[in-house]
């Protein structure tokens, strides 16, 4: 079981699911009937990356609570590793989202719920890093970071809700269908890609935690040798 959860195994699993998902998305799932046509295929990775980013921030949220209860710095480590990866994925969401926007609405930017929410998410979690960088003492840094990680994660769905349901045009618009519901082959391909992305996140978290552990070993060894 331990072997199964190691970084290389997770990468392999992720790779398999992602590649299969990709093949299915292109050759098995039907082309979208809407005006987007073929470009709708972007969605098969764009949405999983978005979900995975949110999962990463969720992991950080749980890690933050765990740290506040136990004061164990390993939870803090899991927290900032997850947030770093979550930020990476969020930037990817924005980039692919902008390409999607160009394909669907012929504009590189629109103040629509998904792009706006992820833009704010990026700002939020960059703020997390800024906060970490200005506190020198380890435990205090972890504490403040944990508090902010909790507050930030709570704010994400609230922000999405606000951008989606509080009409900027002041008056309630008939809510458009948005992305058409998926079923059958589209849904299966989509879910496989989702699983692949989540496995990829797990693999990356694993690998990053390893790196931090190794860094610690190196520092410890150096101090014991030097001192």
């Amino acid at each position, binding site marked *: 079981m331990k072997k199964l959860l190691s970084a290389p195994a997770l990468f392999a699993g992720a790779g398999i699911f992602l590649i299969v998902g990709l093949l299915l998305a292109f050759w098995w799932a039907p082309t979208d009937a809407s005006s987007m046509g073929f470009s709708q295929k972007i969605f098969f990775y764009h949405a999983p990356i978005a979900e995975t980013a949110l999962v990463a921030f969720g992991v950080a949220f749980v890690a933050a609570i765990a740290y*506040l209860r136990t004061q164990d710095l390993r939870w803090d480590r899991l927290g900032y590793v997850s947030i770093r990866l979550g930020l990476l994925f969020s930037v990817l969401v924005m980039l692919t989202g902008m390409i999607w926007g160009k394909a669907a609405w012929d504009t590189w930017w629109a103040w629509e719920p998904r792009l706006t929410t992820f833009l*704010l998410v990026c*700002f*939020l979690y960059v*703020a997390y890093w*800024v*906060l970490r960088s*200005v*506190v*020198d003492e380890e435990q*205090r840094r972890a*504490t*403040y970071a*944990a*508090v*902010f990680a*909790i*507050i*930030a994660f*709570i*704010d994400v769905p*609230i*922000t999405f*809700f*606000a*951008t989606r*349901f*509080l*009409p*900027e045009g*002041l008056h*309630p618009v008939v809510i458009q269908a948005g992305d058409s519901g998926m079923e059958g082959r589209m849904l299966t391909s989509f879910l496989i890609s989702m699983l692949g992305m989540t496995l990829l996140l797990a693999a990356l978290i694993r690998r990053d935690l390893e790196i931090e552990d190794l860094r610690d070993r190196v520092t410890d060894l150096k101090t014991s040798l030097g001192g």
Partner: protein
Amino acid sequence: MSGWTQFRAILRKDLVRELRTRDMLVSMILFVLLAMVIFHYAFSVKEGADLTYFTGGMLWVTFIFAMLLGLNRSFAQEKDEHCLDGLLLCPVDRVTIFLAKTAGNLVFLLIIQAVAVPVFTLFFIERNYAGDLLPFLVVLLLADVGICALGTLLATISMNTRSRDLLLPILFLPLIVPVLIAATGATTLIFAEGAGFGDLLARLLFLLGFDAVFLVAAWGTYDFAIGE
């Protein structure tokens, strides 16, 4: 000393201190009035431009930035005079401190708004919205609570870091965007077209929900934010 008595005591201390010297209040009021003048010049590029649909935004941006200034000032003062340390030595529930500080900040914000809104109306609003005054006040209060609660929590954290006042806006602004969306929408609606509780219901409920969620979140985490 019961929690309520402690709350009143801390609140009284903050209010009395500020009302005695009044420098923070005066500066914040001046800032808000100046911001309005600047907004006029920033937006009136076109001859006789109609800013009616910008009014909600202008108002809330001004209040949010004024609040950031005020929070920085009051917490910096506390830190320099070590008031907080003294307070922490007493057996006071941390959450009581949070509620008292939030209430104090809320009072300051309301005072500033009491001065700013009439002047703003004079400068920018054509419509007589006296009929919609009650909904407007409700919007004001609900948004204020969210701003003060979140602001107090974050200021407590940022004051203990290396970059103190520079950090607070970075932490605060992304988080307060939902409040901004709801409050500016509601306010502009009132100023531009007139709106009753019915039209504003969605936004009011949203603000109420936001306040509830973040008050609970702050209640859970303030112990840690205020440190040992």
